[in-house]
Every structure is written in C-alpha cells, then in structure tokens.
C-alpha cells in the first residue's frame, strides 16, 4: 500500500493513507456495517459525489523508462460533507460498488470529526489483519512454485 512519506498515525498505528487503503481493500460488508454504526454519530450529511468513473492508469516501461497509459480502471467514488462538524469524507474503490465507496467516505468523515474512534480502530485492525493474512496465504502458494533451473 502507498504511504505518504511524512505519514503520521491517525487511528491507532494507521496513517491516513493506510486507513484509506484498508477501507478500499477490506471486506465490503464489514466496511458497510461499520459505516451504518458510525452514521449514528454524525449529523446531516450532504453527498457531493457518488458515482462511477474512469481512472487512467499509467505504467512505466522498464526498458526505456517511458511512462504510458495502460488503460482505464472503473472506480466507484463518494465525496460527502458533514454539516454539523464541517468535515468532508472521501472514498474510492476499484469496481462499481457505490455503497462501499460511500461507506468508506462516511468512515473517513468520522475520522476527521474524531467520532466513533474505537469502532473504527477495531474495524481497521481486523481488516488489516484479514488483508495481510490473505496476501500471506497467496504468497505461500506462490513461493511453492519457486524453481531452480539447471542446465546440462
């Protein structure tokens, strides 16, 4: 996951970049359930954006170092404003799940408003562990395919 160079923890040990990454890659149903809970602690929300759109993905050629566009990725994004505390929240996930993006934005806004910190911290820790475990399981299977070729 991408981290800002001067990242500072925002919730527990998680900086803002890793929080957003965990919310985007975590289990959508868990993120949505947490957002429902968090919503109870936020005042009136205005939706600035909740839509799908295209993010162009550039790639760097390893031979001549040329950056080029690999293609576009469909992304669901949500951008909200919470009136009472005057904070904004933003979420974006690869794919078409607008509810997931909105749930991410709600949690992001709650973090800015310093609301529901315990519930959010529990969610982030659980989802970070889940993602890490999934990746580790996959990479243990990948490692099993490491090969030492011999020539005669």
């Amino acid at each position, binding site marked *: *996951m*991408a981290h*800002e160079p001067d990242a500072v923890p925002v919730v527990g040990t998680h900086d*803002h*970049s*890793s*929080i*957003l*990454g965990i919310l*985007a*890659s975590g289990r959508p149903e868990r993120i949505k359930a947490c957002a429902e809970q968090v919503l109870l602690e936020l005042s009136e929300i205005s939706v600035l954006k909740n*839509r*799908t*759109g*295209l*993010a*162009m*993905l*550039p*790639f*760097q*050629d*390893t*031979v*001549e*170092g*040329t*950056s*080029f*566009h*690999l*293609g*576009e*990725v*469909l*992304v669901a*994004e949500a951008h909200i404003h919470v009136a009472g505390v005057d904070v*904004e929240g*933003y979420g*974006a*996930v*690869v*794919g*078409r799940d607008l509810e997931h993006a909105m749930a991410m934005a709600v949690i*992001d806004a709650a973090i800015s408003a310093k609301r529901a910190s315990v519930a959010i911290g529990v969610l982030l820790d659980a989802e970070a562990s889940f993602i890490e475990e999934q*990746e*580790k*399981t*996959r*990479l*243990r*299977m*990948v*490692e*099993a*395919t*490491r*090969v*030492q*070729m011999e020539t005669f």
Partner: protein
Amino acid sequence: MAYVATRGGEHAIEQAERLFRSDLGKISAARVSEIKTSLPYLVDRVMGEASLYEPDLAALALAQAGGELSEAVLLLRAYRTTQPRIGYAKTIEQADLFTVRRISAAFKDIPGGQILGPTLDYSHRLLRVEVLTGEDYVPEPVIASETPAPAEQPSLTAWQKAQGLIADHATDDVAPENIPDLTREPLLFPAPRAHKLQSLARAETGGVLALGYSTMRGYGDIHPTVNELRLAEAPVRLRHPNGTVFNAGRVRVSQAEIITKSAKLELGFSATFGWNEVKVISAATLDRASAQDAPHAASTEEFVLYHTEPVESSGFCIHFKLPHYVTFQSSLDAIRRVKADNVENGKAPEPVNEKEPAL
C-alpha cells in the same frame, strides 16, 4: 466508397436480433458471475483489448455477445464512453507490483529468483473427458511453503543496466496527466513511444500474435528470448481531496521484456491489463522489431499499430457484410458498359470462362 441508406426489413432485422438472443437464452447475474470466476483469462483478454478494467462488466459483455470476442470488446469500449474520466492514478513502477509469476528464459539465476506462479507451461495438455460423463475434476491443492514469497520482486533490467549489459535510459518523470493519451489524441507516425506502448496494450491479441510470430519466424531480424515475464497485480493509487495518496484496489497486469542480440543486447517491452502472456511476448517483440531498420510489414510501426486495433479492424471487416448494393451495382454497370463498348467498336470479346456466370 459509396454508401446509401436502405429501407425495409425492420421486421426481419428485429427477429434476427431476437433469434441471436434467444439462442443464448436468459442472461442472469449467476451466469455473469460464473463466466467471471470460471473464465478469468478470457475476461482479462476482453478488458485488455477494451482498455477498460472491470471484470463484472467484461463478463457481462461476454455473456451478451455469446463469447464473440470482438462484439464483447466493442460492448465494453462503448460502455466506457458513458463514464466520466475522474482522474489519473499514480504511475505504476515495477517495484509496485504484487507479483505472482516472474520468470526469465534468458538468465537462469536472476536477482529474486524464478517464480513459476500459476501456469500450465510444463503440464500435459489433456482433456479431462471424464467430466463429460459426470465425474467432476477437482484440482489437487497447492502444497504451500512455510514462508511466503516476497510480494515485490526486484527489477531484472535494473540489474542488467548496473552490469552494463544493456543501455540505461533516463526514467521518464512526466506527470500522469501529461502522458500522451490515444483516447484523447490521434495516432500519428512516427508515434511517440507512449502512444506505441498504449496502442500495443489495447491491441487485439490474435493480431499481435500473428504479426509478432511473423517476425519470430524470420520476416524481420528479431529472434526474441523472454528476458522477463511477469504476472502481477498493480495498485490503483488515487489521491484523496486532501492530497493523501492511497491504494483503491488492485488490477491484474502482465508485463514482458524480450531480449535480442544484434550488434548488442536490445530489449522490447509490453504490458497490458489482465494476464495474457501470448499478447505481451508478441507485443514486446513487435516493439523491438519496430525499432529496427527492416523492410517487413511487421517491423513497421504504422502497419502494426493500425492493423491490431481491435474495434477498428473487426469493425472494418464486418462492415463489408452490410449492404453495399450501390457500390457493387456501379461496378457491375462499369463492366457491362466496357463490354458493350467493345462490341460496338468491333473488338473481339474476351474469352469467357464457362464457369463464370454471365453478367
């Protein structure tokens, strides 16, 4: 070419479409989901050629087109035009890739080692015909290692450059929004390298293979060896309104470098959406071939890039089955007129092949 509007046939046209769709039957979310999970490499191919990454939509396109690839790619490209461009992700560098397969055919001992990953490269290609008689095929489970592979693998070309084996080009640090973009600009020749690589990334797999294969067989000076082949997942890193960069999810990508020896070691490169090894190896070969002074068509950038565009090539091909009555009628009239003129001027008629119908 003369085109003309035609009238009539509305009923037949509607019934023809109904017949096509009724042959395919009901399209349900379950069918689309089944396509997505059981045919991921086909879904990848559609997304790569459509230049739009969204597996659910690619699977839906395949369901609607009944697996007809050019129709599926067209459907996804058409859907793309309904969506706004909301931004640019951060540029993917090789070190960012969550790599599951990484091999080199040119160098046995590479930094980070060789990882076969998910592949049938060394497998017997046998049909499991017993499945057709009701005996399910259940794959053997992977015996996982105790320790995981590193998620990121080192760059082979960086090592080769450090060894002085290949030329070390300066890295292009252009901002994503300033990278030449074929979806916003026409393809002109000589093409900027960014256009060439983007064009190859969205090229039709079969077309790229055919032309790449021709250069491999000898219609060109390229005999490629795979320097490095990777299957990986690339992070889509977006920017939060407050400036924080974060990973919004990952997409499957393939990347290939081929190496060839002429006066010195030279490399070609290609990458695309999805896992599609044949495409990136062929396209990397064409990338290298187009940098050489060879007379063959597959070594000519313009020939390669124009003729491997999937929607333009398939669209141009299939348009020939649509009504060309006026065009063809005028050709027929011209032939008849020449014949009549010849008779009038006393010229002997050309010998007629008896098998040819009289015009």
